[in-house]
Structure formats: structure tokens, C-alpha cells
């Protein structure tokens, strides 16, 4: 797990996924691209298949932006954005997964225990191929660029 910036950062960006499983790496690759562009405006964490420890990773931040692979049946590369601080995010979009306890379950567990940060934004990048050892599918590159641009805008809004 790679991090930059102190854990006390009020803005934290966390990428999830399995880099050995093709498009499942979308969240990880997004934060890897973001890391150099975001500077000290946010703490950036590559959390891999973090599971329930996501709760711990979110603790102490006031704003958390999560990026994970999504699978709802839309075209690969489609981007979802949810405000999880308002209502639960659908498990039909973020299936229980290689991350053991998926992102939606970790968020709901944090909510049930009263430790969910004030703002939690979740980006889901719709996946195509998640076979082990498969490279990133062609539509994903553009999708990740799009997510990176959106997140940078969100960061700027946070610091405005």
C-alpha cells in the first residue's frame, strides 16, 4: 500500500483493485496517475484489495474519494459517480469481490458504526475483462483520464 501525504489529510483519495486482473486495476491505475498531479492537496493511497480495512483508511479524513472497478452491465469505460455520504451505493454496481468485503459493504459498515467520514465520493469505472493476467481493455485508458480530470476538479473545489 503506497501513500503520500500525512494520514491526517482532510482530503484522501483511495484507489482499489487487483492489478493482476485486467480492468479490475482501474482504481489503482487512476490514483497512480493522480499522485503526481495532486501534489500535497490530498493524501493518495493505493489500497489494492483492502477489504474491511477501508474503514481504517478512511478514518480521520473529512473528504474521501474512492475509485474502484464497477460492474453494472454498462459499456466498459463508463464512469459512475456516487455520493455515499448521502445514501448507500448499490452492490449491483460494486459486486462483492476480490476485495473480500467490497467497497459498498465497507462503507455501510462504517456508516452502521458511525465512523463514515462527512463526505465520501465513490467513482466506479465499468470494467470489461477482469481475467487474471489480462491487460487493461482499450476503452479504459480514456475513462481513467476522464476520472483523473474530474477528481482534480473536485480537489480544486475542496480547496477553493
Amino acid at each position, binding site marked *: *500500500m503506497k501513500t503520500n501525504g500525512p494520514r491526517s489529510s482532510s482530503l484522501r483519495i483511495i484507489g482499489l483493485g*487487483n*492489478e*493482476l*486482473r485486467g480492468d*479490475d486495476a482501474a482504481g489503482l491505475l487512476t490514483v497512480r496517475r493522480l499522485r503526481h498531479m495532486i501534489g500535497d492537496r490530498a493524501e493518495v493511497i493505493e*489500497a*489494492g*484489495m*483492502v*477489504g*474491511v*480495512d477501508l*474503514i*481504517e483508511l478512511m478514518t480521520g479524513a473529512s473528504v474521501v474519494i474512492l475509485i474502484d472497478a464497477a*460492474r453494472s452491465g454498462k459499456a466498459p469505460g463508463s464512469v459512475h459517480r456516487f455520493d455515499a455520504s448521502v445514501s448507500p451505493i448499490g452492490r449491483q454496481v460494486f*459486486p*462483492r*469481490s*476480490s*476485495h*473480500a*468485503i467490497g467497497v459498498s*459493504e465497507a462503507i*455501510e*459498515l462504517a456508516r*452502521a*458504526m*458511525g465512523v463514515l467520514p462527512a463526505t465520501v465520493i465513490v467513482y466506479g469505472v465499468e470494467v470489461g475483462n*477482469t481475467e*487474471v*493476467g489480462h491487460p487493461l481493455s482499450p476503452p479504459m485508458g480514456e475513462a481513467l483520464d476522464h476520472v483523473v480530470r474530474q477528481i482534480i476538479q473536485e480537489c480544486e473545489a475542496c480547496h477553493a
Partner: protein
Amino acid sequence: MKGREENNSEQMKNTRTIAVGAIARVEGEGALRITVKDGSVQDVELKIFEPPRFFEAFLQGRHYDEVPDIVARICGICPIAYQMSAVHALEQIFGLRVEGALRDLRRLIYCGEWIESHALHVYLLQAPDFLGYESGIAMAKEHGAVVSRGLRLKKAGNAIMTLLGGRSVHPVSVKVGGFSRVPLRRELEGLKDELLWARDAAVETVRWVAGFDYPEFTPDYNDVALRHPDEYPFNEGQVVASSGLHLSVNEFEEHFTEHQVAYSTALHCTLQGSPYLVGPLARVNLNQEHVTPLAKQVLADCAVALPLRNPFHGIIARSVEILYALEESLRLIERYEPPPVPVAPITVQPGIGMACTEAPRGILYHRYEVDGDGIVRKAKIVPPTSQNQSRIEQDLRLFMPRLLSLPDKEVALACERVIRCYDPCISCATHFLNLDIRRESSA
């Protein structure tokens, strides 16, 4: 399988099929199909997609030094197990035995993984079954303090993994011959206060789960685990079975055979043709003499006697092992003196090596063939879940008759509970476990 193929179309008209979107709280992907005909269970087929098979091919042509990092990626829940089986097998090829503080550190990092994996399963995956909640989230709403205790216990395991492994998910410091970095004494001592808290919490955990209501169910198991003369097993020992089998790890493949079944990509492993049980229940039963006095006392207080014969008591075994791992961690930290070098020197030589270690879910067998340049030519991995697969199916066959009068939805939930007893780690894979019950009648 045969039974279904023999059904003619007339009979199939009487088939009812229920598909449940996913079996909750099981790590990963798979499918379960149960066929009931004329009121009796005909077929139970558990299908698991099993990526270690992919990794066997993926490892070919890789340098031995890359193996620990690659196999750590097989599973997000038990990377240490994969690393430990790999390094011990490779060290056997190179004629290396890792001793002293490095051996202790390997036990310690394995303790971290057991604590982390078992605490997750006990508190968030299986306890909701006994307390009547559909999920850990629902349970957390009414038992927030208990779930917090579970998460803090898990975190104590994470802390060990992070200190020794460099990070808690996919640790990176395990190497053939030792570690890339070993901790300072004061770094390990920094863990002690939290581990002492966790030890007390583990005692409470055993008491808590011992008080659950358990269904009466005692299949006749052939338990299989490692056994070591001096210690509760992690990385070393003979492979023993309650049937009386006793063999060295090098003889594993002579007795344990994998075979394909048509409905699953995973290979089923059997012991001399029969299902067997691996995991905490089997481990505790076969290593009773190494259960600590404190754990024995707590079990006695709760009127729990070993051996445990009910698969639902797996949660008790897992809790006892959390306690063991914490006591063992504290013991290892207490006597720790940093080794002179973090990694023992390696002399590469060609050969074949094998190792079995005790993953949280049971024995994990690796075999490697390496050439004179240290390049892996062949790899074989037998994970615990594939070993338990036949046993899970057998348990479902035995448990189903008492469920047949229930509506399909309740049958499905009960089957999920049986499957969760094994903490099956299908996770290396992903996404869904579909449940399909077919009720057929020849009338």
C-alpha cells in the same frame, strides 16, 4: 451429475430451480447446485473458479526471487500463507534451513495473518449467522461494540503484518532465505500493549462464540493438518490425519490426489480417494497438546471439550487460534533478538522442492521445480479450499435432509451457513456464488 443426465425431459418438467444472486460472506466466486429428487438429495456440486491454477503457469520462467511477490497476489486474505509455502519449498531445493530469529519472525508474521483473517471471519462473516443477522452490517447496527472489538482485533493482526511485511495487504518483505528487512527490537515491543489488549479480547471472543446456539451436526471427519512435536504448526511439521496417516510433506502427492470434476474449474483433492477436512477445526483437533493452558482453561470454563466434531464449531476453533496466535506473538516478541543478517545466503542449485504450511483455512501445498539458473520450470499449488471442496459437498448432502421441508429460500440460507463454516477462500477469484436448487420428481 450422472443423476441429472439420466433425467428425461418429462421428469425435468417437475424440476424447480431457485437461483440466489450470491452467497453472502463467502470470499469470492463460485456456484452451488443442489438437486433434490423424490425428496432425497441426488447431487451437490460446488463450483469454484480457482486462480492458483493460473498462477502455476504464470510462475513458469520466473526467477525464484520473484516467486514470493507473485504468489502474494493470489489472495488478498492470506498472502503470507502463499509466501511461506513458496519460500519453504524453494529453500528445500537450495538446501537451506532458516532458523533462529528469522524462523521466529516467520511464525510471527503468520500469527498476524491468522489473527487478521480469523477475526474478519468470526466477527463479520460468520457470527451474524448465529445471532440472526443477514450481514455483518446489520449486526453492527445493534452490536456496534462487539463489531468494534472484532475490527480492533483484526487491526492487531494487521499491525504485525505491516511491521514485518512492509504493508498489511500483499506484504513485500518476505524473501527466500528471510526478509528484506527485519524489525528492531523496540519496533516489536511497540506492538506489545495492543497485543495484550487483543489477547484479552481473544479470550472474550472464545467465551462469546462458545455461547452461541449450534445445530446438532457431527459428520465423521478425517481431519488433516500439520503436526510438529514442539509447537502449534505454522511452517513445519508432518502431515497427519485423524485416520492415522502420518507422512512427510515430500510424500504429499503420493496420498493426496487432485482430480477434475466436470462442473468446476477447480480440482478436487482427496486423500486416498475420500474427502477430508483441513482448517482450524482439524488443526485444533490434531494439535490439542499445543493448545495453550489459557485457551484450555477458557474452553473448560465454557464447557467446550476437544476434539470438536461439529463443523459449526469451526468458529470456536478459529477463536481459539486467534488466542493462540496472540499468545504466541507475545512470546516471540519477548525473546526477539534481531538476527545478524535479514536474509540467509542462498546457493542456487537445480531441483524439486515442496512445502506445506498452515494457511488460515488449512494446509497449503506448493511444489517447485527450479533449474540451475534459479528459474522456475514447474509450479504446483494445492490451496486449502480445493481440499475442503469435496468435504463441503459431503456436509451439504448430510445436512440437506433436515431442510427439505423448508421453503427454498430458507434452504438456500441454511446451505450458505454450512458453506461459511469452512471460510472458503474463493477470493482469489471474485465475484459471485450463485445458488441453484433443483427439486425434481419422477412422478
